């Protein structure tokens, strides 16, 4: 449908696009993302002939974009630019009817076809009820739907939108993308959006295009493009990627800068935490804030404690869920424990998968340990006494163990041990 071949573009002396090769199939729903000045809007403007590429070529349905005159192009391609501020008071119907401009002769009135198409697009975009309203009486979301309706009235094969939701409240953002999704599914409309909102884009677009400094850094489905490594490389930001439980699409969360700043004011006291199942997440934040150097292991990927540790940027040994911890991970965990001044074992339950987390403690009789004992080990033992046996062995042979009955006393206990 749309193909670009090594397009380059510069504003004055500054190179914005440094050779973009793209091929977009009919019916695709593409989201272009990237940091500011990565060239995403410029790419869209090149593809919509608003800007003319310095070199390279763009083909729309196997014909050079430059060979289309503006009216021909307006029938194939509709664009919703970033600034759609309409600072004059047309009514909604008139605005949408302007989308028929490429089909109308200068002096002809409105044809039955024009009226029919405008009515259709108003139905699709749910703007029929706004028909007689003035554009400035509408909310941001309604306004954007009207602008999209006008674009649809052009009967395009391809719709491009530059930051379609950047000025909208969150409820309208979803509404607009739902509409785009519907148009894509129902009418096989090819849609290309540019957005700085990674999560919205990931949620709705079939394919993402991640730009960095005028080049395509990554392209493909959201799960492949939105990785911690890619985001770090392109945005220089520490993020954690979770999975949206409803859509199973990736979901990006920024790790707050504060947490990384704190690292610089750390205490010279290392604590290794053994936890899981969310038994540590509540106090991990506190320990981090107090400036202790934390490590944690071994956690299952996706576990609540794992997410907390990820967000805090704690050094961690992780393992895939639902299988036994492997020897390799145990070795890694041991390395962290070796460095620690204190080991904390939370009140986690033990099963086949994580028994190694308890066993490992037997190797360090000299290290100071805090063991949560607010829950009886018998109740947390899901492997027929194996965990209990190790627990008792620990208590018998180890003199450096402090049992903690009250969770709330954890901090004060650590402070005592620290001195």
């Amino acid at each position, binding site marked *: 449908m749309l193909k670009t071949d090594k397009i380059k573009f510069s504003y004055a002396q500054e190179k914005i696009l440094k050779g973009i090769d793209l091929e977009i199939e009919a019916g695709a729903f593409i989201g272009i993302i990237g940091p500011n000045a990565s060239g995403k809007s410029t790419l869209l403007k090149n593809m919509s002939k*608003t800007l003319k590429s310095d070199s390279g070529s763009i083909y729309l349905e196997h014909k050079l974009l430059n060979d289309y005159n503006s009216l021909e192009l307006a029938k194939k391609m509709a664009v919703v630019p970033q*600034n*759609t501020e309409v600072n004059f008071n047309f009514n909604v119907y*008139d605005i949408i009817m*302007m989308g028929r401009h*490429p089909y109308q002769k200068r002096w002809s009135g409105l044809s039955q076809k024009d009226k029919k198409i405008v009515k259709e697009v108003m139905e699709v975009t749910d703007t029929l009820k706004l028909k007689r309203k003035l554009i400035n009486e509408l909310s941001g979301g309604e306004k954007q739907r009207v602008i999209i309706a006008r674009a649809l009235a052009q009967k395009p094969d391809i719709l491009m939108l530059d930051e379609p939701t950047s000025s909208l409240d969150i409820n309208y953002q979803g509404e607009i993308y739902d509409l785009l999704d519907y148009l894509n599914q129902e009418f096989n409309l090819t849609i290309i959006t540019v957005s700085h909102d990674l999560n919205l884009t990931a949620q709705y677009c079939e394919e993402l295009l991640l730009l960095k400094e005028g080049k395509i850094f990554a392209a493909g489905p959201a799960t492949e493009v939105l990785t911690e490594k890619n985001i770090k490389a392109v945005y220089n930001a520490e993020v954690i990627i979770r999975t949206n439980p409803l859509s199973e699409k990736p979901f990006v969360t920024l790790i707050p800068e504060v947490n990384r700043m704190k690292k610089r004011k750390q205490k010279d006291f290392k604590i290794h935490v053994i936890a899981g199942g969310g038994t540590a997440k509540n106090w991990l934040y506190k320990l981090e804030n107090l400036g202790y150097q934390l490590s944690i292991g071994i956690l299952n990927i996706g576990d609540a404690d794992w997410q907390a540790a990820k967000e805090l940027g704690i050094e961690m040994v992780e393992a895939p869920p639902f299988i036994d911890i492997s020897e390799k991970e145990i070795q890694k965990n041991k390395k962290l424990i070796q460095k620690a001044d204190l080991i904390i074992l939370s009140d986690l339950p033990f099963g086949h998968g994580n028994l190694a987390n308890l066993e490992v403690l037997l190797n360090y009789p000299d290290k100071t340990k805090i063991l949560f004992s607010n829950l009886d080990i018998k109740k947390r033992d899901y492997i027929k006494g194996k965990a209990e046996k190790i627990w008792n062995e620990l208590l018998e042979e180890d003199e450096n163990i402090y049992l903690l009955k009250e969770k709330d006393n954890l901090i004060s206990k650590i402070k005592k041990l620290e001195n």
Partner: protein
Amino acid sequence: MGENKKNIFIYLAAVIFSLVLIFLAMFIGSSQINSADITAYIINSKAVSASTAIIIGEIRLPRIILAFIVGAGLAVAGAVFQAIIRNPMVDPYIIGISAGAGTGVMLALFLGIEITIFNLNSLPAFAFLGAVLTVFTVYQLARVGNKLPVLTFLLAGVAVSFILNSLMSFLMVLRTENLQQLVYWLMGSLAGTAWSDVRMILPYFLTALAVIVFYLKDLNILLLGEESAAHLGLNVERTKIILLGAASLMTASVVSVSGSIGFIGLVVPHIARMTIGPDHRRLIPLAALFGASFLLIADTAARTIMAPMELPVGIITALAGGPYFIYLLRNKSKNIW
């Protein structure tokens, strides 16, 4: 359908109002002519006495017609400029066109050039030349790449206006013998209008009007913003230049006979827009009717308030338009379109 009926009513009212105004303006003046004579004159110009016929036919009627054309022209040009620049604060004055046209005319008068080519008086041509040169200069000064930012356009217009105004003042100082006439011209006046004035500007006026009417629909599309307009298949730069040219020609043609009559180009498009909405296919004709009526009232007042002395009509339009514009600013600063 209700909207259509309303619009028809508005137009009907505006046309009737204008006709009544023309009729009234015909028998207001320093010599008394009763309405029977005027009616008789309208039916058959030979039916009244020779002096009455001259007063009506050679003095009042050309002036009324000219007021009509000038008022309509300024309002239409103002509406076009506001649409192209997408800013309701623009009129031919603010961006220096009037000053440019004025300087052109003054230069022509100063150098004593007044050549008639093919029966066309060259004064409007000079005004046009001055106006177009000014628009071109302002456009070039304000342009950034291939974009025309509104703010720089206005500022460039103001700056160029200042320069041209001082140039006009300088020419006035050099040519003191008919200073009063020049001052009147600068303030805007329709005094001493003859049919020759109407004939002089009519070709330019009609040409410009035809172009604007041809592009009425494109004006609406332009209002969506240049980027959106381009995506709807409009050749934005070409349309802008043609319309700027036509509006400049229109302004230049009327300024060449009337001098600088202020505020019509700014305020009348607003009133028309508030009455009938922003669609230029309806707005431009109504703005023309409103502008014509407004100037006719103002001019009739100008020649009667201090009769037999004449006030420059520009004083009256500014006096009426200024406060109204301030009222607009205070009340509708958000939603001025």
